[in-house]
C-alpha cells in the first residue's frame, strides 16, 4: 500500500511519502512523481514519515531531479531522515559525484564525503 | 521485523535442513512440497526470499521461478535454486527464468547462509 499526499497549493508544492519506498512500488512511485512534477514549477519532497528506501527509489529521485532541471523547474528534498540518509551513504551517493562545482550546490544529495582539494 | 523464507523441495530432508539452518539464523521459514504448493503458499503468506529445488513434481523449479516472476509482488523477490549440477547451462537456464543465485548440493548450513545473505538480511 503506497501512502502519499500531494499538497499542490503551496509554494513550493509538497509531496509527502510514508512507508517503505522500494522497487516493488517503483512504477507507481514514478507515476506519482511525474504527475506531481507536471502540476507545479517548484516541488519539495518530504520523506520525514518515509520508511526504508532502496536503490531503485534513490535513482528515481535522481532521475526526477534531472527531469526538473531539464524543464527549468525546481525539485528538492526537505530533509534527510535516518533511513533515507542511511540508504544514501550505503549506496555511495553524495554531492561529490555530481557534475561540477556549480551543480553541486543544486545537487539533490547531501555532503556525505569530504573530498580533498584536487591534487593534480 | 524478521524476514520470511519459503523453501520449496519435494525432499523432506532438504526442507528440514534448510529450515533448520535458516531458523537458527533468525529467519522465519515456511515450506512447500512442490512448485504448485509454493504458488499457493505465496498467495497467503509473505515471502522475502524463495529457495527452490529444481526437480520436483507438479511444477518444476524453473517453471516455478518463471511463474513467481509473474506473480504480483514477487517480480523482484530473490530466488535461490538448489542444484546438484554446477553446469553453466543449468545456471543460464535459471538466470533466464529470473533466478537470483544458486547453491550446489551438498552444502553446509554456513554455505547456505552465505548465499542467503547476498539477498536478504
Amino acid at each position, binding site marked *: 500500500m503506497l501512502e502519499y499526499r500531494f499538497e499542490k497549493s503551496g509554494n513550493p508544492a509538497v509531496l509527502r511519502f510514508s512507508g517503505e519506498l522500494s522497487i516493488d512500488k517503483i512504477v507507481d512511485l514514478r507515476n506519482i512523481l511525474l504527475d506531481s512534477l507536471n502540476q507545479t514549477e517548484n516541488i519539495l519532497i518530504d520523506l520525514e514519515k518515509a520508511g526504508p528506501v532502496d536503490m531503485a527509489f534513490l535513482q528515481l529521485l535522481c532521475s526526477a531531479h534531472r527531469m526538473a532541471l531539464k524543464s527549468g523547474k525546481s525539485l528538492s528534498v526537505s530533509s534527510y531522515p535516518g533511513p533515507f540518509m542511511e540508504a544514501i551513504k550505503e549506496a*555511495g551517493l553524495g554531492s561529490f559525484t555530481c557534475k561540477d562545482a556549480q551543480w553541486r550546490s543544486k545537487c539533490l544529495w547531501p555532503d556525505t564525503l569530504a573530498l580533498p582539494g584536487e591534487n593534480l | 521485523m524478521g524476514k520470511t523464507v519459503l523453501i520449496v523441495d519435494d525432499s523432506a530432508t532438504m526442507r528440514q535442513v534448510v529450515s533448520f539452518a535458516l531458523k537458527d539464523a533468525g529467519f522465519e521459514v515456511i515450506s512447500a512440497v512442490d512448485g504448485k504448493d509454493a504458488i499457493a503458499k505465496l498467495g497467503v503468506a509473505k515471502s522475502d526470499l524463495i529457495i527452490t529445488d529444481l526437480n520436483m513434481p507438479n511444477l518444476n523449479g524453473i517453471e516455478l521461478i518463471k511463474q513467481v516472476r509473474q506473480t504480483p509482488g514477487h517480480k523482484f523477490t530473490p530466488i535461490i535454486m538448489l542444484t546438484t549440477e554446477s553446469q553453466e547451462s543449468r545456471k543460464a537456464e535459471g538466470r533466464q527464468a529470473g533466478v537470483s543465485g544458486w547453491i550446489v548440493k*551438498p552444502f553446509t548450513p554456513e554455505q547456505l547462509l552465505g548465499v542467503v545473505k547476498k539477498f536478504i538480511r
Partner: protein
Amino acid sequence: MKGPEDRHKEIFREEANELLSELEGSLLELEENPEDGELVEKIFRAMHTIKGSGAMFGFNEIVSFTHELETAFDHVRNKKMPVTKELIEITLSARDILREMLENSAEGVGDNERAAQETLSRLKRILPGPLKTEAENSRLKDEKEKENEKIFRSSGDPVTYRIRFRPGRDIFKNGINPSFLINELMTLGDCLVIAQIDSIPAMDEFDPEACYFYWDFVLTTGQGVNAIKDVFIFVEEGSELKIEAVDEGDPGKPADYKRIGEILVEKGDISAEALKEALSKHKNLGQILVEEGAVPHGRIASALVEQQYIREKRKSLKEAEAAASIRVPSRKLDILADLTGELVTLQARLSRFSIAENNPELAAIAEGVERLTEELRETIMGVRLVPIENVFSKLKRIVRDLSGELGKEIALEITGAETELDKSLIEKLGDPLVHIVRNSIDHGIEPPDEREARGKPRRGTIHLSAAHSGANVLIQIGDDGKGLDAEAIKAKAIEKGLIQHGTELSGNGLYQLIFASGLSTAKEVTKVSGRGVGMDVVRKNIDALRGTVEVESWKGEGTCINIRVPLTLAIIEGLLVRINEEHFVIPLSMVEECVELIRGANEGQNGKHIANVRGDIVPYIDLRELFGIGGPPPEIGQIVITEADGKKVGFLVDQVIGENQTVIKALGGTFKQIDWISGATILGDGSVALILAVPQIIKWMENRETERAAFRAE
C-alpha cells in the same frame, strides 16, 4: 544426546525408506506400462532426491550408487533408452541394496560393496553410453566443491584494490539488490563506495525497473581477489566487474600516491592524449575535464577518493611501522658491522688456540663463542639488508617521464623487487641502473611507429628483475628494443683505438665494448643519454662494488644487461691463496676452478702466460710477478681460474689454502692508489691478506697486451 545432524540423518533415512517403498510400486507399475512418462519422471525424481539429500549428510556410498541409477533413468526419460524387463529387474535389486545400505548406515555395520558392484556392472551393460567412471565422478565432486568454495574463502596480506562494478540493467528483475553486494564487500575490509550516476536519464526516458547506477570501490582486504569476485558471483554474467590491485600495503612506499590524471588514465576513464591536452591548459584538471565533457564528474570524484584513501592508508601504515621500529643512523650500523668483523677475526684466533691447547673446557668455550659470533654476524648483516624495490621504484618514474618525453610507449615490468641486499650496495646501484634504463629508453626501444613497422607491439617493454644467486644478487635490465648494432660498435671501437683493425671478436665479446670509455654509437647525441659517458661509468660503479656487468644483445629483438653484485659489501666469500709468505683473497663469486701448473711446462713467451685447461687456452697472471714477491716458486704451482665479464683469466699462486669468509676492511693511505686491490682482511693469526680486484687486474692486463701489440706493430 542427538545433535541436529543426527536428527537430520534420521529424517533422511525415513524419507529414503518411504521413497524406496514407493519406488518398488512404481517399478512394478512401469513394467506393466513401459510407456508411462509420468512414472519414469517419478522414479527419476526419487533417485534424484535420495542422491541430493544423501549427499548433504555424507551418505557417500548411497550417493554414488544412486547416481548411476539416476543416470539410467535420465536416459529413459530422454528417450535414449527403452524400459526393458532387465532394467526393471536391475533397478529392483538396486532398490533392495539401497535399503540395506540405509539400514547398515544406521547400525554402522555391513558391506554392500560387492552386491552394489555387481548390480552396477549389469546396469552398465544395458546403458547406451559408458557409465561415468570413478575418475569422472571424483572430478564432478571436485567441481562441486570448488563451486561452493568459490563462495567461501581464506586470507593473506592486505592489498588495496580498485573495483568498478557496473551491473546489468536488468539486475533488479533477477531479484538482486546491489546494496547487499555492497554490504558484503564492506565486510571484507576497509571500503569506500562511490556511486556513479551519470547514466541516470531524466524521467521521460527513465525505466524505473532498470538499474542505472554503477559503482567504484576502493577496498583494502587480505582475503584476495577471489573473495571479491565471490561477492559478485551471481551477477558476473551481464555485469562489468573490473578489479585491480593498486597498493600492496608496503610501509616502505612513500605516502605520496599517483596523480589524478594518472589514475583516470589507468582506469580507462580518459585517454592519455586527452589528459595531455587538458594538462597543457594549466588549469584545475578536474574542472577542465568536466567542462569539456571528457569525463563525468563522478569519475573524477572517484579518482580523488582513491587518491585520498591510499594516501591515508599509507600514512597510517607508515605510522604503525614507525611505532614498531626505531631509526638509527646508518653510521652506527657500520660501526657495529666493523666491530663484528673484528670479533669474527678474534674468534678465529680463539678457535685455533683452543685446538692447539687440546683443553676440552677451552674448546667448549671456543665453540660457544663461534656459534654466537656467527649468529651476531648474520643478524647485523640482516639489519643492513633492504629490498631493491627502493631503487626500482625510482626507475618507474624515469620510465614514465622519459618515455612520454621521447614519444615512446613503454611498459615497465618488475620482478623480484623484494630481493634484499646490503644498504650500502643499494645506494651505489642507483646511478648505474638509472644510466642503463635511460639508455634502454633512448637507444633501445624504438618509437611506436617504427616498432609497428617491424611487426612488434607498439608498446615496448623494459623488464627489471632481481634475484639471489648464491652469494650474489643478479640484476637484469632487459628491453625488447632494437638491440646493439655490432657493426657500429666495431667501427667506433676501431676508430677509438680500442681494438685493432681485423681483430676478430665474437658477438658477446664485441658487445662488452660498450662499457669501454668514450664509446657511444648513437648517431645523434641526445640530451638523454649524453655523449658516450654512461656505460663506462656503469662499469666503474659496478667494479667498485666487486661486481660484474655483462651485456647480451640480439639484433632487432632486444638487449639485456646482467649485473652481479655481492649480497653485502662488508663480508665476502673468498678463496684464500698464498704466495711465499703473502696471503691474498680472491672473491669466490668469480672463481671457476683451480688447476695445477707444473713449472717449466708452459712458461710464457713474451711475458704472456698461457695455460691449457682441458683443451681451452686460458691466459694467466703470475701474482708473484705482478706483486714482485720474492722467494723461489714451488715445483707445482696452482692456477685459480676466474671468470669476469665473460672472460676467463687464471691467477698463478703457490698454494690454494681454502675458502674463507672474509670481513673486508677498507684500505687507507697509500693502498688506495692501487686499483688491483679492493680491500684487505685480517686473518685468524692477525696477519693481513689483500683482496684482489679481479676485473681491474684483467683490464690492466688487456690494456698492456693491446699496448704491446701496438708497439710490436709499429
